[in-house]
């Protein structure tokens, strides 16, 4: 199943529905960040970088990159040191609320994906700004240009 989140931000109307849906699915605050500007809005979420700085920084091998599904967290290995948060080039990873919260980022709704269902943000977005696509489609939007990183 295609599993990379594709954001067509030119369609986004900044309703924050995706953020709310994401928060409800995972508990706590949403893992998308809808950035608002005067006449535009940009929803940001984890890009599943191929050469991921968060994966490179993690001292416990708790973050692993998988060709088919992107970056995943092995929660039992994580010590909550927060080095991954410092490493994310897009600022879309944070430590969960409260003392000892796990690192929190878009996991493309792992639980739902394993059941073959769509992420809740994709289902909720009223303007179809969010969709799930294969790696190839999403990679056309690589951002080598901007951050020097190969990202999905």
């Amino acid at each position: 199943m295609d599993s990379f989140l594709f954001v067509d931000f030119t369609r986004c109307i900044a309703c924050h529905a995706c953020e709310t849906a994401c928060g409800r699915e995972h508990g706590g605050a949403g893992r998308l960040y809808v950035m608002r500007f005067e006449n535009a809005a940009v929803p940001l979420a984890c890009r599943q970088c191929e050469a991921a700085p968060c994966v490179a920084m993690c001292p416990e091998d708790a973050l692993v990159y998988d060709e088919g599904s992107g970056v995943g967290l092995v929660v039992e290995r994580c010590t909550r040191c927060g080095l991954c948060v410092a490493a994310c080039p897009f600022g879309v990873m944070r430590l969960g609320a409260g003392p000892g919260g796990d690192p929190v980022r878009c996991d493309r709704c792992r639980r739902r994906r394993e059941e073959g269902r769509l992420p809740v943000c994709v289902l909720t977005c009223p303007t179809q700004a969010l969709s799930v696509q294969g790696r190839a489609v999403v990679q056309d939007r690589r951002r080598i240009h901007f951050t020097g990183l190969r990202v999905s």
Partner: protein
Amino acid sequence: MTVPEFHQRIHVDTDRCLGCFACALACPEGLIGWEDGERTRRFHAPALCSGDCTRCRDACPVDAIHLEPMKEPAPAAEPLCWSLSLALCRMCRKPFTTQPILALLTRTLHHTVGLSQGECHWALCCPACRRDLESRRLLDAARWNR
């Protein structure tokens, strides 16, 4: 004065410490603490520990903690205290991590991810400013592609 119930001595290599506070989060007794000031993060920990776990040591990503088992009761000792400089965001000037973590990030981006220093100005910014930078970059790119 002797304190027989304490049976391990905590040593922290403060030159190695990154200031990540994994040790503080790992300690089941909450014996290790930290506060952030304007420019420094200050840690405190007891010199002697009555627990028999090794969780702080195991959590530390740089092996900065050494636990020395004590065979004999030891006299009470001054608590440990160490501090690290915070790194301020280049855009908003708010602290977002420690200097040693930032230095490690720069090295990692260079050696592991293959980014040169010129390619990662974003590393000097806090997460909120990185989001701002990225969304402006995307908007600019969309304008160019039209």
